[in-house]
């Protein structure tokens, strides 16, 4: 049962706050009294809270409650902010739940070694690599028109995947696309995706450099790297006064701050809620 009902968009101008149910009936009663001969085109109804599933990162689950099923979740941030680590964690969590996942890799940037280290079950992951065949020039350094081709492919592929149905998680990785290209995706496309996953159990996760889906995203997370985690050299004291040799340094990971910018699945807090987590470099 819904613990915090959210009113349908027909009547409520403040979708983030739950209203008492008595207001629902009084509004309907008022309409009936003032316009007795008018038959309403639709009935006022409460939209149930979507089911939330784990994002794979406990800190993110604490602030956001998890990723909502049947909704679009957008994760944005600059490079090296932990977006892809969050994506891998979400894929791991979904494949652990024995759900079939699909990754629409717009820039063909997915690293199988990282995913294997994370423990993602590849038998349950459908990888779609957008872009034309290998050319002499790197894919992401082409003219903007070629980037648009990749995005157009990604939109068509996403349409097909959502229409097919049955996927537990469909992720669209636009992280490496320039923001001026990614924001050209029409709002109608995002709206179409949102309507396609509505009333299904699919989590639609979009990774972007900056917010693109606007109001279509039920959950919007912003990620930012906090600090670099590096292993202090074990014998730094022996090198006092000297530069630490580069091979003695080791990138352990980095600390990431995640902030909830928008959430339709819970009451909006008075101030931004954020949490930090640390990634760890894969061994071997």
């Amino acid at each position, binding site marked *: 049962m819904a613990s915090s009902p959210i009113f349908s968009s027909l009547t409520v101008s403040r979708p983030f706050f739950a209203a008492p149910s008595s207001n629902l009936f009084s509004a309907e009663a008022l309409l009936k009294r003032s316009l007795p001969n008018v038959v309403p085109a639709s009935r006022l109804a409460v939209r149930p809270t979507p089911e939330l599933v784990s994002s794979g990162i406990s800190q993110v689950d604490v602030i956001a409650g998890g990723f909502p099923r049947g909704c679009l979740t957008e994760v944005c941030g600059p490079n090296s*902010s932990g977006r892809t680590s969050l994506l891998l964690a979400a894929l791991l969590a979904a494949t652990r739940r024995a759900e079939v996942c699909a990754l629409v890799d717009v820039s*063909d940037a997915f690293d199988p070694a990282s995913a294997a280290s994370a423990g993602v079950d590849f038998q349950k992951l459908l*990888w779609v690599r957008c872009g034309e065949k290998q050319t002499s020039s790197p894919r992401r350094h082409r003219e903007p028109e070629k980037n648009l081709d990749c995005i157009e492919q990604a939109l068509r592929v996403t349409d097909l995947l959502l229409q097919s149905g049955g996927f537990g998680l469909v992720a669209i990785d636009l992280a490496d696309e320039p923001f001026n290209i990614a924001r050209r995706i029409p709002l109608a496309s995002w709206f179409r995706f949102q309507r396609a996953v509505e009333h299904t159990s699919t989590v639609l996760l979009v990774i972007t450099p900056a917010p693109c889906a606007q109001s279509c995203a039920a959950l919007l997370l912003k990620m930012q790297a906090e600090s*670099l985690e590096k292993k202090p050299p074990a014998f730094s004291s022996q090198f006092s006064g000297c530069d630490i040799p580069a091979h003695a*340094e080791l990138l352990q990971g980095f600390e990431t701050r995640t902030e909830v910018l928008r959430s339709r699945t819970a009451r909006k807090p008075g101030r931004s809620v954020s949490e930090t987590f640390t990634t760890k470099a894969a061994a071997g």
Partner: protein
Amino acid sequence: MSFACIFVPEFSVQALLRAEPNLRMQALAVLEGKTPLQKVFAMNEYARAAGVECGMSKLEAETCSDLMLRERSLEQESAAHAALLDCAQSFTPRVEDTAPDTVILDLAGMKSLFGPLHKIARDLMRRASEIGLETSVAVADNPDTATLVARGFSGVTVVPDGKVEEQLGSLSVEVLFAGKNDEESVQLLETFQRWGIRYLRELAALPDIALSERLGEHGLFLQKLAQGKTARTLAPVDPPLNFEEVIEVEHPLVLLEPLAFLLNGILEQLCARLSAHALATQELRLELDLVSGWRSEDEPDSNRSTSLRAGLRGRPSPHNHFSRTIRLPNPMLDSKTFLKLLQLDLKAHPPGAPISKIRLIAEPARPRPAQNGLFSPPSPEPEKLELTLARIAAIIGEDKVGSLQILDTHRPEAFRVQRFGIHDPAKSSTNGNSHGKRSSDDLVTALRIFRPPLVVTVMIREGRPVHIHSKKRTEIGGEILWTAGPWRSSGDWWEQDGWSRDEWDIALQQESAIAFFRLVHDLLSGRWLLEGSYD
């Protein structure tokens, strides 16, 4: 004991009509022989009514108006016969392959399963009609009587007990020699005609001794047939399961739409035959015979987009044969899904020449038992998923969609994209990595790969990279804030394509924040490459 006989009248005509059902209501005659000595071999009732006779030459037959002429196709007859056997074997395994146009079933024990004999006979006729054959079905207490009645009466006939001779009596003596062209049979028929024996009742009434003196044992046997007193055991056959349909087209096919129309008909018949055996298929093989020596100027421009010759414009096909195989991850039995998969495949790989013959073979497989658990998570339907994957492959390429398989080597980018399929949850395993179950707090720092790697210029100071510059991507460059490395890895030095590289992790200041990259020095080529960014 009861036996049912399924007889296909005008078998050669019916075999052709399976591929062209639109000709069923038209006068159709089948020709046999080499040009210009072709003669009419068989015809349907409309052609007979128009005055066509067996043995007519092609020129004579062409004088009849509204008459369609087709060459006899042994392959289509073979496919029709196989379909007829499938139909019979869907009721009982005890089926005798009496003739190409006749099969006999042993109905022992079937009443309790399928109902009374009339119902069984009607079901047989209906099932045969579903595979494109209009048949006559007869049920009698011995196989030979059932055969004669099926050949003599159209529709469904059940011979009541004790009324065998009466039922057979009204049949013409010619029914005893149907399908036989040997000299002895021709002579016997002529003898009966000279004696004035027109019907089986007249043959049955002849004195047996006198008949034996004049016609011998064969004559006596024919009399017993006419009386319905023969008794023989059925010789059931167990033909190999061969699900194959063939169509030879009159005019070579150039466009995809008519080919799809024919494929739809073939697929429906194949699926019906597979369903009759409670089987599905996991592999479809399409084999096309092509016309060689064509010219592209013959084709109107409006057909270019859906032309089957789009793949090799302006050049004659070097091969006369074209084949495609569609392998399915799970056994399926949906003709519409198969048709869509074939259409998508032919659009991606057009044959390159007009098509003169179509052969479609389905490899039988046990159907997939699908029973979803009450609490198991939903997964895509295999048929829908297969279509979706085919459509995605048509957009981005076949090798760009699938599931990953990590190869057993330390070479960078050692993976393979393989066909994606839904596996049995009980049999599914992890991707084989040795890290075991990872807790949610052990997050892996993910790497985003640049494909292909970005070539950069690096300034080295005291053995460390201190400055980096990229021509193609100017926003990645500048002073390196932090480095870690190098870590050397190499391998396959005994092969032609060995590799050796030094890897560095570096930090660069970008517009909004510090970003981390993996820098690689290829020791064999000497190039510096930016392989990816940590995210």
